[in-house]
Every structure is written in structure tokens, then in C-alpha cells.
């Protein structure tokens, strides 16, 4: 097809720029919304998976009180004192359990050389770091003797270390936790917020024994972390843990003061929440596209009416009705695609700006791009059908009325 053929066929599209822009606007908004929202959905999914990974499929968490999974995060609704350190020791007898760590969570003021910060202090044992698959960027893990011997040693979360020590080495330094002196023996790598909704960088780990006696003076624990050898064993272990704890507490299942949470539960609720979100977003964007293509239909109808004489002339010059139909179908497709590409461009720009701004992982939105382009073509075709039909029905005899 030569350039002149192309121009004579479709030159009319670009004749009225304002009209073209207005008809394209709806499509631009629809496509960019579709792209941005879908990419956000994908990105949120990736983010969730990253968080869940820190809470592996082979990990079980026993929490005291009735915990609820809300918005995809395990939230402790109320604390009870039912769970004891002895419960954790009793569970260790289950043979499929690989690692187990009791946990007591409290908050404290941590102090170093006049710098005070308020942070979360977690009492754990020497298996905890291995169980959670955390690595240390400085120092070492707790020794078993330190846990059983009520030693005042601490491992700092990455953020705590940065705030107290900056670039300096923290290992071997002495800090005050609630005015008690502790020796720093290690620093955790940066981890981020995990599925238990806690910023794992903003915490200090100390031996559980020290936490319960010297620091918080309690005889109960907040929870127990358990890891099993194989993820397939999780349901079985969950049942055994439940049975043992019920027996030990001598309560009926309804009154139990603990709850067992596994990665699967969190994943399930998270997926439900995000699929609700993305289906909502998708219906809105498709609505946008429908409104946009109705805009194209309206403008095309206007255009057909305004170009009656041109169409009549083409018919008089020997254009078949099919050729006119084709011309206007292609015109609305070109208009829609044009809007679609601008929409994609704006959408991509939005993604590149907003995803990093909101600390979401940057994902390459191939699927949304293909989907929105496909939908644009579809709606472009749809919006062109009626105007093109109207155009092809124009009577060339109008030309002779001296109009």
C-alpha cells in the first residue's frame, strides 16, 4: 500500500485534532487505569509472597489468646496467660518437630550512649534464628548455655543497630534494656515486615529466660514457633500440638487459650483479600474502557454525520458500501489504538513513579499490557461498528442536492 493510498483512506482521522483528542481521552483513562491497577495487584501479590517466604511453609506458630488473621496478617487479638514455657518443652517430644522456640514479646526502651529508642524485645531461644532462617551480618547466635543461664546478651535487629550504632561495630558493646545492661553479641540482616506484621528489623532478641525473669517478670509466654521437617507434615503436627496443649491445659477446644497459625492460613486470607481487590479494580477499569469506547462511538457518529458529503463522494467515485464500512471500522480502531498506546505510556509512567514511592516491588506488567491492548482493540472495534454501519448507509444522491 502506497503512502497516498494510506492517506486517502485514513487521512480523515487526523483532520480535526480536538475531536480526535476528545474521543481518545476516555480510552487513555481506561487503559492507563487498567494497566496501573493490574500492575499494583501483581506487585501486591509479589510483595505478599515475599513476606510469606519469611514465614515458610514448614513453620507453625502457636500464639496465646485468640489470634485472628486480618487483612492477611496474623494479629493477636487478646493476650492470655495460658501458654507457659513448659508447654514449649512438652511439644519438643513430637518427633517430627525440627526446631522449636518459645517467644515472649514485650516492648522496652533500649539505650546506648545517651541514645534512647523504644523497640520490641523478643525473648527466644538459641533455635529461633535458625528456625526463622534469619542470618547475622555481625557476631553470633545465642549459645544454649546463655539461654538456660539467664545471660544478659542481645542480638539487634538491623534498624535498631543502625539507630544506636550507625556505621560502628555493635558486637561486644553494652546497651541498656529497661536500665539492665546487656552485651550485644550479634546483628540481624535486614529482613523487613514479615507475615506476622512485625518489622523484623525493629527488634532486639534476648534469651527467653532473661526476658521472662529479669526484664518482664512474667510466668507465661506469648507464643511458640515450631518448624517441621517437611511441609506435608504440618497438618499432622498441628493436630498433635493441639491435642497436647488441650490436654495440658485441661480445657475444651472452645475455651482454649491459644491458636495455631500456619503460613497456609495467612496465604489463604491474603489471596482472598487481593483477589477481591483486583476484581474490583478490573471491573472499574473495564467500566472506564466501556465509557471510553462509548465516547469513541459518539465522536465517530458525529464525524460520520459531519462527513456525509465526503462519504457520498467516495460512494459516487465507486467505493462499495463494504469499503466505507471498512474505512470507518479501521478509523475507530486506529483512534482506540492510539488512545490505547498513550494510555499504556501514561500507565507505565505511573507505575515507574508510584511503585517505588509506595515501596512495592517493581514488576514488569506484561500480562496487564497484553490484556489492556487486547481490550482496547476489542472495544475499538465494538465502538466503530454502529458508526461505520451508519456511514455505509449514506445515500450518495445527497451530493446532487446542491449541499
Amino acid at each position, binding site marked *: *500500500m502506497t503512502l497516498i493510498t494510506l*492517506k486517502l483512506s485514513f*487521512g480523515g482521522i487526523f483532520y480535526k485534532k480536538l475531536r480526535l483528542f476528545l474521543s481518545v481521552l476516555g480510552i487513555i483513562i481506561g487503559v492507563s487505569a487498567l494497566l496501573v491497577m493490574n500492575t499494583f495487584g501483581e506487585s501486591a501479590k509479589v510483595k505478599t509472597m515475599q513476606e510469606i517466604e519469611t514465614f515458610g511453609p514448614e513453620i507453625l506458630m502457636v500464639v496465646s489468646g485468640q489470634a485472628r488473621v486480618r487483612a492477611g496478617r496474623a494479629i493477636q487479638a487478646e493476650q492470655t496467660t495460658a501458654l507457659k514455657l513448659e508447654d514449649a518443652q512438652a511439644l519438643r517430644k513430637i518427633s517430627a518437630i525440627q526446631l522449636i522456640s518459645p517467644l515472649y514479646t514485650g516492648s522496652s526502651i533500649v539505650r546506648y550512649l545517651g541514645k534512647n529508642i523504644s523497640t520490641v524485645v523478643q525473648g527466644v531461644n538459641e533455635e529461633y534464628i535458625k528456625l526463622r532462617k534469619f542470618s547475622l551480618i555481625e557476631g553470633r547466635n545465642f549459645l544454649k548455655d546463655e539461654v538456660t543461664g539467664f545471660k544478659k546478651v542481645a542480638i539487634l535487629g538491623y534498624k535498631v543497630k543502625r539507630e544506636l550504632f550507625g556505621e560502628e561495630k555493635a558486637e561486644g558493646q553494652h546497651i541498656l534494656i529497661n536500665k539492665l545492661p546487656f552485651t550485644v553479641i550479634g546483628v540481624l540482616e535486614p529482613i523487613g515486615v514479615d507475615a506476622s506484621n512485625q518489622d523484623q528489623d525493629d527488634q532486639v532478641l534476648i534469651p527467653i529466660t532473661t526476658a521472662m525473669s529479669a526484664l518482664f517478670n512474667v510466668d507465661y509466654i506469648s507464643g511458640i514457633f515450631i518448624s517441621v521437617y517437611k511441609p506435608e507434615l504440618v497438618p499432622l503436627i498441628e493436630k498433635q500440638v493441639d491435642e497436647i496443649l488441650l490436654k495440658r491445659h485441661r480445657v475444651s477446644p472452645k475455651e482454649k487459650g491459644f491458636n495455631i497459625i500456619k503460613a497456609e492460613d495467612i496465604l489463604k486470607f491474603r489471596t482472598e483479600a487481593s483477589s477481591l481487590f483486583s476484581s474490583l479494580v478490573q471491573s472499574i477499569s473495564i467500566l472506564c474502557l466501556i465509557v471510553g469506547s462509548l465516547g469513541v462511538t459518539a465522536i465517530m457518529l458525529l464525524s460520520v454525520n459531519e462527513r456525509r458529503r465526503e462519504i457520498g463522494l467516495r460512494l459516487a*467515485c*465507486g*467505493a462499495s*458500501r463494504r469499503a466505507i464500512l471498512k474505512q470507518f471500522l479501521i478509523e475507530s480502531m486506529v483512534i482506540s489504538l492510539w488512545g490505547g498506546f498513550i494510555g499504556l505510556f501514561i500507565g507505565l509512567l505511573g507505575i515507574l513513579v508510584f511503585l517505588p514511592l509506595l515501596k512495592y516491588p517493581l514488576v514488569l506488567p506484561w500480562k496487564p499490557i497484553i490484556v489492556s491492548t487486547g481490550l482496547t482493540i476489542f472495544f475499538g472495534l465494538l465502538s466503530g461498528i454502529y458508526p461505520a454501519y451508519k456511514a455505509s448507509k449514506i445515500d450518495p*444522491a445527497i*451530493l446532487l442536492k446542491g449541499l
Partner: protein
Amino acid sequence: MSKILLQLREIKKTFQSGKVIYEILKGINLEVEKGEFLAIMGPSGGGKSTLLNIIGLLDRPTSGSYLFENREVSTLSTNELAKLRNEKIGFVFQAFHLIPWATAQENVLLPLLYRGKIDQEDIYRAQGLLDRLGLKNHINLKPAELSGGQQQRVAIARALINNPSLLLADEPTGNLDSQSSREVMDILTELNKEGLTIIIVTHDSEVAKRANRIKILKDGLFIE
């Protein structure tokens, strides 16, 4: 080879509006020979436009027979009529009807779009036609940049690009001043002398005088 280009026999055209039926053409008989220059005159509402639409294959008669180059065309399909218009008939309109966003040259080439592809030879031909009609320096101008007379000359070039057997002109001078009118009529006369068959519809008796034959249409019938 027959000398007759087209032959109309008892052509009738009726329109229905609600329950009322209007008979616009009441039985037209007309023969046009090749190379003729025919002018059709008559009062407004006499059926001139309707007749021109039928002759130009833009419309079909309600009844009667229409032979164009010895072929019955009153019963052809819309697509067959379009093809025949494209190959055999050139139109010149009172309001020029040029495409506003296309240049003079592109406007001239428009009928070829529906014949097939446009090649370099066609472009030379369009330029040749525009050159001959005195528009050599205007081939890349848009219609809005041309005067009325120049626009009508572009329209004539467009009508000629397909080497038609018949040129139909509907009030070609209706929107022009007297100077431009004379120029356009000079061109049509010259084309007729070269053998092109022309049918022209006009109110203007000065214009009609250029034709070899004048027919007057009144109330759906030729009165002379």
C-alpha cells in the same frame, strides 16, 4: 459498434412519504449518443436531480429500462453499480465536493483508490490533468487554498482520472462567478470536442447554449 451510449425507456421513479406516493419521474425516454453534449434544464422540483441520479447510477428507477453501453443496468446490485460508476462515469458537482484535508493531486486520485492500487504512473497522470487544466502550480494545495473556479477544475480532473465514458455535471457553474463559469464551460466544451460525452444539468440558459442539444424537464416529463 453502436453509436448509442445510453438509452432510457419509460423510466419512472416514485417516492413514498407516509401514505402519500409521489411520482417524480413519469416515464422518461432518452437516448444519448457517444460524443454528445446534452443539457437538461427545467424548474426546481421538476425531477432533474432524480434523473441525474439514475443516469449516474447513484439510484435505481422504480420501473423502466436503462441500457448503458447496451447493458441493462436498472437491475444491477449496489456493488455492481459502484464498480460501473468507478469505471465509466465522472461526476462534477455544484459544490465541488473536494476532500478538505487532501491536496489537489490527492483529490484527483481518489477514484483510483476504489479501482485498485495507486502507482507512480497514476500520479503522473493526475499531475498531467491538473497541468492541462491550468493548475500546474497548485497540485499540493488544499481546497481551502484554492478559488472556487480552481476547485471546480480540480473536481473536473478528478472526474477524468478514470477515462470515463460519460461526464455528468450538476450545475457545475452554480457556485462560480461569471469569469470562472466561462472558464469551466470552456474546458467542458473542449473535452466534448475531444469526444467525451457530457450531460449537464443547469438553470443557466447561457451555460445550456454550449450544448448540442437541450432537453427541458417539467413535472417528471420532458416537454421538448
